[in-house]
């Protein structure tokens, strides 16, 4: 499985539609303070199923929807798609095997979240199944948020187990 492309629309500070194509190897994301780098990390966590608003630095899940700035009004919805390829035999859509899949999550102001697989509505459970046993599930060790690298050493001995359980 590989990351191919991320598409955001109305997600946090990414008001306009934006695509990021991912290569193999090491991709550096750079830019001044507050420009939106960690918001890209949040977009990936969100689309793969993150359920906690606090883990996305908000109070309420609708805090991920672009809430306006000096020159624009807030938007009504946020939508993120993540296209993955080389997924092996994981997914059978409409009967035929596909080597590429797009997962999409959409949230409206009333708080309704909806999920899509290759454009067809699905449940969160279907998305979670896609990532079962890949280490991406709870993103315990595949996503390290800003300021959290020391967290593993500071948490108590029981909480540290999560990182091993995810890999077991």
């Amino acid at each position, binding site marked *: *499985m*590989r*990351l191919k492309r991320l598409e955001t629309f109305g997600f*946090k*500070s*990414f*008001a*306009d539609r*934006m695509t*990021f194509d*991912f*290569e*193999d*190897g*090491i*991709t*550096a*994301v*750079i*830019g*001044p303070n*507050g*420009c*939106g*780098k*960690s918001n*890209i*990390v949040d977009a*990936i966590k969100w689309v793969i199923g993150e359920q906690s608003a606090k883990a996305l630095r908000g109070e309420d899940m609708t805090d991920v929807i672009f809430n*306006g*700035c*000096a*020159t*624009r009004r807030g938007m009504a919805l946020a939508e993120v798609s993540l296209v*993955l390829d080389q997924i092996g035999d994981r997914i059978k859509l409409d009967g035929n095997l596909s080597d590429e899949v797009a997962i999409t999550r959409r949230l409206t102001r009333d708080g309704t979240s909806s999920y899509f697989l290759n454009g067809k509505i699905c449940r969160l459970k279907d998305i979670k199944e896609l990532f079962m046993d*890949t*280490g*991406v599930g709870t993103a315990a*060790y*595949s*996503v*390290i*948020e*800003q300021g*959290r*690298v*020391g*967290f*593993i*050493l*500071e948490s*108590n*001995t029981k909480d*540290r*187990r999560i*990182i*091993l*359980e995810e*890999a*077991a």
Partner: protein
Amino acid sequence: SRALFQTTFREVRKNFQELFRKLFGGGRADLVLEQPEAITETTPEGEVITRKAEPLDILEAGLEIVAQPPGKNPKIITQLSGGEKALTAIALLFAVYQTKPSPFCILDEVDAPLDEANVDVYCSMLREFVRGAAGSGLGSQFIVVTHKKRTMQRADAIYGVTQNEPGVSTKISVKFEEVGKLGDSERELAP
């Protein structure tokens, strides 16, 4: 299940010991399953005896982390410095990643506490993982958010993010030559 956890624990422990030595250029690290404190009892005659408690069930026990940078003798890991803690945590995360590689790995300013020499060590480790995974079908995509020049120079691709319109993020392409004068490229990106 118990057996699965046991094998994962053994493998992560082995990887952690190895990666720690690589990142620190020596020293010693370990991952230990927490054992209950010994139980001290007083017999009716007033004698104090200490006996080992039942070992904790491996599915319950917490994880102790031991980390000794070369030449040092810290009693507990909270005595380590900010940079030593970050490097120890990186060794542990990569040890887990090596045991069960996930398709991609995202690291948000993990190099912030590191000095110049350790930023290089961190980048070399990333490079080794990418090389090792290439061709084996294992995950080999690392997305690293950074402000460190050195890390930018050692990446395969660079994405710039900026806000020409304050409050609205957009993408901007950055060429490697620009990174050399980093102070400039981050400033150039600044609105």
